[in-house]
């Protein structure tokens, strides 16, 4: 039976019922878009597998679960969260913790970092930079005929705001630790905006963790504007438990001569779907989308990537790799779209997978849609096992079979990790992936729960 009508009913009740709370607790600009988005959500609904973009991802496990809290206007207790120690915390970063999609510091939470970069809550940003937020909010979102982004627009009430004005740069990466922690099952939706103006630079690290064993579902929307001659990097490290669902939609909009890269490292999670949209809107831009996913148990990890070449002479890469064990499944859905105007396009797309068990499964759809002729586009996809020749080579040097396999898997994964732009982080993630592959890490070290 279709689980969706009931869920949509419940969401509608919450939407109508707590409308007052929404309005009261949200930036005005959020409220202005709600009604249209809500109608759009009702029209499109929750996607099922008949939707081409969700063909291999069944959301029922996450969306069908009866969460106790769908909208929580009050920030949770932060004491627990502040005790949390993230594996990648020792890095030299500027760090901030979000709990269940909310800021600890409330409206005061907008600070200027050395170098002139602003970071804080959307609520505060809407007050301090109303024109800027107005200009960019809800401008870069797209969809694949599904209601998930509108659902976020209709119901989110806060999120991260990051702003690098013209000619600014912050030397350290900004780290956002997204914690899910509660004594109730929560469906959370955060809405984030990153604006990197012309000739500015920003590097963002997002770590997703679930630290209490409750069921969680997050439906996150992040819009990123990358101005002319600017540079933006985002690295997501996802490490949530098997009862959690994580759905992210990231829209990276680039103007000319800009550079952007996105790196999704999914180490753990019950159901994860990362949609990354790259819009190359100005000439001579470059964009890179990387992903690594390691799954076992019943986990499902999906990556959806779309790179739009909407301007001439841009370069793009997509490189996604996965190792799937036990009953896990993976999906890759990548598309390069070269518009008529985008002559001189250079685009590359690759998805490689290793299946380790009989029950593991991988579905991949690497697609090209090309309307310009002066292009170099190539793509490739593989599903297979470790290379036997390489395995023998390692063993012939005295390395035992198990260790040799791990080395090869690690080498396979490193291909993605090596593209992480921050060296210290790269090493840390190498480490985490090693541990994960060795089965030593089924959770973050300080996590209180077992994920088995």
């Amino acid at each position, binding site marked *: 039976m279709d689980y969706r009508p009931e869920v949509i009913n419940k969401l509608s009740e919450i939407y109508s019922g707590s409308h007052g709370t929404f309005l009261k607790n949200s930036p005005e600009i959020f409220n202005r878009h709600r009604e249209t988005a809500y109608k759009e959500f009702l029209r499109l609904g929750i996607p099922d597998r008949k939707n081409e973009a969700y063909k291999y991802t069944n959301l029922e496990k996450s969306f069908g679960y009866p969460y106790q809290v769908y909208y929580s206007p009050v920030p949770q207790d932060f004491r627990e969260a502040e005790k949390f120690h993230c594996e990648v915390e020792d890095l030299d970063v500027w760090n901030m913790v979000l709990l269940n999609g909310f800021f600890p510091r409330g409206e005061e939470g907008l600070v200027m970092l050395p170098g002139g970069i602003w970071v804080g809550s959307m609520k505060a940003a809407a007050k301090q930079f109303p024109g800027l937020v107005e200009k960019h909010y809800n401008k870069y979102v797209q969809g694949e005929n599904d209601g998930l982004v509108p659902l976020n627009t209709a119901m989110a009430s806060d999120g991260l705001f990051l702003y690098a004005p013209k000619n600014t740069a912050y030397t350290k990466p900004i780290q956002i630790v997204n914690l899910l922690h509660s004594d109730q099952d929560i469906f959370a939706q955060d809405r984030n905006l990153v604006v990197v103006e012309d000739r500015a630079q920003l590097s963002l690290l997002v770590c997703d963790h679930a630290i209490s064993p409750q069921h969680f579902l997050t439906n996150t929307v992040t819009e990123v504007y990358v101005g002319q001659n600017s540079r933006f990097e985002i690295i997501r490290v996802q490490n949530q438990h098997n009862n959690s669902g994580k759905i992210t939609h990231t829209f990276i909009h680039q103007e000319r001569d800009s550079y952007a890269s996105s790196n999704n490292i999914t180490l753990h999670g019950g159901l994860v779907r990362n949609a990354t949209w790259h819009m190359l809107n100005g000439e001579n831009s470059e964009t890179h989308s990387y992903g690594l996913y390691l799954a076992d148990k019943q986990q499902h990890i999906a990556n959806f990537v779309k790179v739009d070449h909407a301007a001439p002479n841009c370069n793009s890469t997509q490189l996604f790799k996965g190792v799937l064990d036990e009953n896990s499944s993976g999906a890759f859905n990548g598309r390069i779209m070269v518009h008529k105007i985008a002559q001189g396009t250079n685009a590359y797309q690759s998805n490689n997978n290793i299946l380790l068990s009989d029950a593991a499964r991988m579905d991949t759809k690497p697609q090209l849609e090309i309307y310009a002729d002066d292009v170099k586009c190539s793509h490739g996809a593989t599903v297979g096992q470790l290379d036997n020749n*390489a395995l023998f*080579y390692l063993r*012939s*040097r*005295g390395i035992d*079979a198990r260790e040799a396999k791990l*080395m090869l898997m690690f080498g396979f994964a490193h291909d993605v990790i090596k593209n992480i732009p921050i060296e210290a982080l790269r090493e840390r993630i190498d480490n985490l992936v090693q541990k994960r592959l060795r089965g030593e890490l089924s959770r973050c070290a300080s996590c209180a729960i077992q994920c088995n």
Partner: protein
Amino acid sequence: MKSEFLLQIKELKATIDNKEILKGLNLEVKPGEIHAIMGPNGSGKSTLANVLTGRDIATVTHGSVTFEGKDLLVMSPEERAREGIFLSFQYPIEIPGVSMVNFMKTAINEQRKHRGLEPLSASEFLRQMREKKELVEIDSALTNRSVNEGFSGGEKKKNEIFQMAMLEPRLALLDETDSGLDIDALRIVANGVNKIRRTDTSVIVITHYQRLLDYIVPDYVHVMYDGRIVRTAGPELALELEERGYDWIRKEADVNEETWTTDRK
């Protein structure tokens, strides 16, 4: 009782896809000896290397191989390596994403563990890396890369010898190590082998041509033909082969074969 031989191959027969490639091969190697195995394409030289290192492409159907008196054929490839057998691959494998440093460190420490030794300290390991790199004149940049990834043919062969220097084997099998090398690279590789070889290290050089043997002078030269060693002599045999080619060996071997078959009838 310890055998006087390091390696002893008796009546070895092996098949690939049910086709017999090795047809009763005998070979004995004492510590410190250098043997060259020559022969035309398809005579079974590389299959021998595969069988000795435990690659499962070939199936042994008959005969025995002992290494320091131990049955080699029951050992896994890594056990053989840890016992001290090293193969310089004819076509070294590229392994993207696995750094040379991590690769070598793992290999050395596995070997040390096998011998009951503590793992090397990081500084000691790096010292050895440096030292051996100089020995085989390998570019430092290469050892910072992934295993063999993007190496030229010559660089790959040098990298094999570098690994041999690091692992200090009892028996080194050089499978067509000279192929694809120009004369300078050949000299560097050959000298590398000579420099790292200890007095008790044995070497089996598998090669088509005599030119490598100018540098690594063998005690014995064996000619392999149709899965057997059909002739054994000193280094002068290699020169003769260089001059006369393999045809005469082929003819002689074929004649022998025919006689033998007739006898049986």
